[in-house]
């Protein structure tokens, strides 16, 4: 067990180290190290998962990292149902993304190629560390590590200003959330006296409810940043500047799911803080709807997917917020498959169209690239919640959980968002893969991607289609399995089977309705979307400009901050005050000097005068005083 866990976590680090240190040797062969490293890690994770399925648990320390007096933090790993599922999901999806990257990055320079795989490995390592750590501080190491790697990978094409800026935006925005997370950690150490999960969660109830509320809210601030929830979601759409497999990795396996995992991991705390859980669910529901509406009108293939991820993360937060933690993690699990898949297909389209991302220029591509097209359809059916695809099971689980745990408003928002999700996903599909080609030149260029890219697509498509059936296993399936850790005993399905079925039918109907509307609008052109956009111009403009959130941030936060720094701190404080004092003293000395030096005429008679006058003056002073 111990060895398998260490293997799963540290083999990617080893791969990153080899590619990082021997950059100039591995060059274009970097994938020969990086990809097997990830597959090895994936196999280890699956072994761990199978052992946990057999009832094994592990909580062990590798070594003491920080033993300072009473403050003891080990490098230790906690393997239970939750982390085993996370390990398996992350390493499995990441492994196929690594394989796909070989094809996607084939045109990069040798050094860039090795660098890319080094960072990709490191990224996965930090995420695996995050989900398997047994204390808050080690989790925080992974937490910050994925932030760092996302910065590096989003800004991979750093010669491009927009990519470099997107990398910085991602880093700075998530850091903002991390600040809250860190304060939360300080509070946990101060009041619980330990950062070990085992100690904190077993004594969770020793604190007053208000204190726990504060702590959990602070932790949630970190999750909002990392998992791109409102209002800190702005970095995620910009993260599309990175290579597409990186987007896929960020959205599916690593990084953005960290926040959901963290909340689920701290379920013992959130259970004691109903207000915080309420906030989590509300933010989740709001973000789900908010991001879905933006995705309705966006024309950029990858950005639609990015907003869709934000929206789906909102679902996950609804799940963990209303107390059905297992459903949230289940959605994370299925989402990893279908979102990873959809980003890879988008990358495949982008790859053959030489970076073209505007859906309005595509159309009919399914004839040229059938594997890409049909796998995308599978992913879209999954995200739209059409049975029997995976999204249906997990989304329904969350919505039913929201409904039965007394959050009807959240349920309504979630169900409506399901409709929007189905609509924008199929709008994307009909614009990209079906209908008539709108740009003949692009259409000519299109062809199917090489097998190294299509095989991961097929594998993930199978996963997207079938992952939902894990819900049907014995003892409540994956949800029941996760609940062994997450400790949620209420089986809502039994409470009201009839109502449950009704909810199920409603949510499926919403998905079908969304698809039908998209079909009629973008294939039949009834009602014509162009005409609709014109009649609903104010709403369309608002959505098209993403509610002007970026503009608002610029106007109210970034510009005042930059302006304040430039004009108050720099131009006034630094230049005027500090430099002014220093330069002023210098100038004063020169001024006095230029007056005094007039005495130094160089003419001897003047000096004689001065000597005599001086002697007389001193003499008289001597007499007078």
């Amino acid at each position, binding site marked *: 067990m111990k060895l398998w866990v260490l293997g799963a976590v540290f083999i990617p680090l080893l791969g990153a180290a080899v590619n990082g240190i021997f950059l100039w040797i591995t060059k274009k062969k970097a994938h020969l190290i990086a990809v097997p490293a990830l597959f090895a890690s994936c196999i280890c994770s699956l072994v761990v998962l199978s052992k946990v399925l057999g009832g094994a648990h592990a909580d062990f320390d590798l070594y003491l990292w920080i033993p300072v007096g009473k403050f003891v933090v080990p490098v230790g790993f906690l393997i239970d149902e939750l982390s085993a599922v996370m390990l398996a999901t992350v390493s499995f999806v990441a492994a196929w993304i690594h394989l796909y990257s070989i094809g996607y990055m084939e045109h990069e320079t040798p050094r860039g190629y090795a660098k890319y795989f080094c960072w990709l490995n490191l990224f996965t390592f930090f995420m695996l560390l995050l989900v398997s750590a047994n204390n808050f501080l080690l989790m925080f190491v992974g937490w910050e590590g994925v932030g760092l790697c996302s910065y590096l990978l989003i800004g991979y094409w750093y010669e491009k200003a927009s990519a470099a800026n997107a990398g910085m935006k991602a880093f700075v925005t998530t850091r903002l959330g991390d600040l809250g997370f860190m304060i939360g950690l300080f509070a946990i150490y101060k009041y619980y006296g330990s950062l070990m999960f085992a100690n904190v969660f077993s004594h969770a109830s020793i604190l007053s409810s208000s204190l726990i509320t504060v702590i959990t809210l602070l932790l949630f601030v970190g999750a909002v940043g990392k998992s791109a929830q409102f209002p800190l979601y702005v970095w995620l759409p910009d993260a599309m500047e990175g290579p597409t497999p990186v987007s896929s990795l960020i959205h599916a396996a690593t990084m953005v799911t960290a926040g959901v995992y963290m909340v689920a991991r701290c379920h013992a705390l959130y259970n004691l803080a109903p207000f915080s859980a309420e906030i989590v669910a509300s933010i989740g529901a709001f973000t789900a709807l908010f991001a879905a509406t933006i995705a309705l009108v966006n024309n950029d293939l990858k950005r639609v997917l990015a907003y869709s991820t934000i929206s789906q993360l909102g679902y996950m937060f609804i799940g963990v917020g209303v107390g059905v933690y297992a459903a949230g993690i289940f959605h994370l699990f299925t989402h990893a498959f279908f979102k990873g898949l959809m980003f890879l297909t988008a990358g495949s389209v982008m790859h053959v169209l030489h970076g073209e991302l505007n859906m309005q220029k595509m159309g009919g591509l399914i004839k040229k690239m059938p594997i890409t097209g049909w796998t995308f359809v599978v992913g879209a059916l999954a995200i739209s919640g059409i049975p029997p695809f995976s999204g249906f099971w997990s989304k329904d689980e969350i919505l039913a959980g929201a409904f039965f745990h007394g959050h009807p408003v959240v349920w309504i928002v979630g169900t409506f968002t399901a409709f929007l999700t189905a609509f924008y996903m199929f709008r994307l599909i009909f614009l990209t893969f079906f209908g008539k080609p709108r740009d003949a030149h692009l259409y000519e260029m299109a062809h199917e991607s090489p097998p190294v890219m299509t095989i991961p697509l097929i594998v993930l498509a199978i996963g997207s289609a079938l992952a939902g059936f894990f819900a049907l296993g014995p003892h409540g399936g994956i949800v029941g399995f996760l609940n062994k850790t997450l400790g949620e005993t209420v089986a809502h399905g039994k409470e009201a089977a009839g109502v449950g079925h009704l909810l199920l039918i409603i949510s499926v109907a919403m998905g079908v309705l969304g698809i039908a509307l998209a079909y009629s609008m973008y294939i039949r052109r009834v009602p014509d979307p162009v005409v609709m956009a014109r009649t609903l111009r104010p709403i369309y403009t608002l959505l098209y400009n993403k509610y002007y959130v970026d503009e608002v941030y610029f106007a109210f936060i970034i510009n005042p901050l930059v302006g304040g720094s430039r004009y108050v701190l720099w131009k006034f404080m630094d230049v005027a005050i500090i430099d002014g004092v220093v330069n002023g003293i210098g100038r004063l000395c020169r001024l006095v000097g230029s007056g005094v030096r007039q005495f130094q005429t160089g003419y001897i*008679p003047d000096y004689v005068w001065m000597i005599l006058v001086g002697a007389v003056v001193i003499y008289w002073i001597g007499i007078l005083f």
Partner: protein
Amino acid sequence: MGIGVFPYIVLSVLVFLLGALGLMIRRNAIVMFLCLELMLNGVNIMFVALSRRMCSAEGQVIVLFVMAVAAAEAAIGMAVITAFYRVRGGVDVDRAQLMKW
């Protein structure tokens, strides 16, 4: 008993002031040098006169020192002026203004 000490003092001050005045208003280095000697001698007269008045030999001893110093100064001063004349083509002190700010 002779004429008393007062006329000597007057003479001494006059000689000293003449020297100082010459030093201030003349521009010729040699004349200024002579004026300097004049000032020294004015002081010497005062020393001698007062030494005799106070029946003390100290003043006369100092006068000998002053004369020795004046002699040495004359030697150096004349050497400086000669060198200055060679470099500057004249003994006018207005030509010596390298030390000006």
